[in-house]
């Protein structure tokens, strides 16, 4: 579905990505994790076309995405912190997004209903709390039934109930055969949702394994501990 070939990106002197090769397949939930500043967000932004890599190529459905934008119709993106036009009301925002995306597939407004956003259409975006803004982001990401979902820290800032709803939604998407890429720091959540983990460290992929493998290799039952163990081993090496 999505393949990256030797992605390199520098911001000034700082080399953020040092040759990333990955392959994301449909029907799986992949969690990209790594310490702060390891290049997770940059990698996601490269895939979204918001950051242009210095070298390397990204293929979406086998097509090179440089100088292309139409592939983004198949991506639903939920940013870490959603920024929206402040003067807009929720209703107007949704209407606009529907207007801008020439809708081909059926709309998925489940989250809209479950988060009760329908009844907040008259609220202006600038008056919303961080959590509500996240709900809006989530609803938008799922709304157009995309083949790929990219969720950057999806549950951060959501109340437990809302987070639960989102998780269920993610699992449902997986069942529908979608590719879901999640970045997260919450290991329990990753454990719950993801099939495999891609660990980025200082701009390189340290490992890319299924959670099952990680657990059996380390003999740990809890994902958090397992990861920590791997890190320790690597440091010894």
């Amino acid at each position, binding site marked *: 579905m999505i393949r990256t070939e030797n992605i390199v990106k520098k*911001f000034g002197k700082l080399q953020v990505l040092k040759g990333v090769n990955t392959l994301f397949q449909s029907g799986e939930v992949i969690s990209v994790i790594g310490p702060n500043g390891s290049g997770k967000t940059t990698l996601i*932004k490269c895939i*979204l*076309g*918001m*950051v*242009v890599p210095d070298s390397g190529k990204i293929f979406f459905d086998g097509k090179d995405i440089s100088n292309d*934008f*139409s*592939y*983004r*119709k198949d*991506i639903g*993106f939920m*940013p870490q912190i959603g*920024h*929206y*036009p*402040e*003067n*807009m009301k929720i209703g107007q925002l949704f209407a*606009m*997004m529907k*207007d*801008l*995306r020439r809708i081909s597939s059926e709309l998925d407004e489940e989250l809209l209903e479950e988060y009760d956003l329908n009844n907040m259409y008259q609220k202006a975006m600038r008056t919303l709390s961080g959590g509500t803004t996240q709900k809006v982001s989530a609803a938008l990401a799922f709304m157009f039934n995309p083949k790929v979902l990219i969720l950057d820290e999806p549950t951060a800032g959501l109340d437990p109930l809302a987070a639960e709803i989102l998780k269920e939604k993610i699992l449902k998407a997986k069942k529908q055969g979608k590719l879901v890429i999640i970045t997260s720091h919450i290991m329990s959540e990753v454990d719950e949702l993801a099939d495999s983990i891609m660990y980025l460290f200082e701009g390189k992929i340290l490992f890319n394994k299924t959670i099952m493998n990680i657990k059996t290799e380390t003999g740990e039952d809890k994902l958090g501990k397992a990861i920590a163990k791997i890190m320790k081993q690597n440091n010894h090496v």
Partner: protein
Amino acid sequence: MFKISKYVFYDILRSKVIIAYTLFLLIISCGLFIFQNDISKSIISIMSIIMIIIPLVSIVFSTTYFYNGYEFIELLLAQPLSRRTIILGEFIGIAFSLVTAYLIGVGIPILIYAANATGTVIIISGIALTLTFISLAVLASVATRDKAKGIGISLMLWFYFSIIYDAIILGILFAFSDYPLDKAVIVLASLNPIDLGRIIILLKLDISALMGFTGAVYKEFFGSNFGLIYSISIMIVWIILPLSISIKIFKKKNL
């Protein structure tokens, strides 16, 4: 593209700045027409004011809007839209708002009080200046991510075109005052959209006679059909060039 423009326009319409700007222009131009009983004097005053205000407001407002609307651009970037479309959409949206404000604030009073060739030229030059300075604002905005820097660049551009450039011209004319500068002067005028606009308006006011034999140089050139096509083309270049450079930069920009 026009969908983006539509939302930009709605967004700008909601802010009070554009309404204040419209009213400001309207009050000034109506005031000048009503309290100045000589229409040609009012026209000259209006011209002097729009030559300062329009570039300043256009460039500062557009730059500020561009930065304040960065979320919107971010949102758009994740959508299946090309960056060119996004920039053009933004440009057209801002342009539509500011041109509308100008047409209401200055165009309508002129149509009421001075619906003649001079009035038409003022309206057209005003629109061209508005578009040019929005285009320059877009360039300033994509050139740097820092809002303060971007607005700083905008103000510098305005300052350059409004004051510094003319001072440089004076310097050049002084340094080469012994040479025939007919052609040089036309080129110099073309390199500043504000000067170009002002000269075209003044020529329509038949003030060229005042300019003596050198005025004849301008009149002969800018007054001719070729000159008209030339000035219109130059104005269009002034709108399109910064915009297309902006698109080039924006295409490679990391957001």
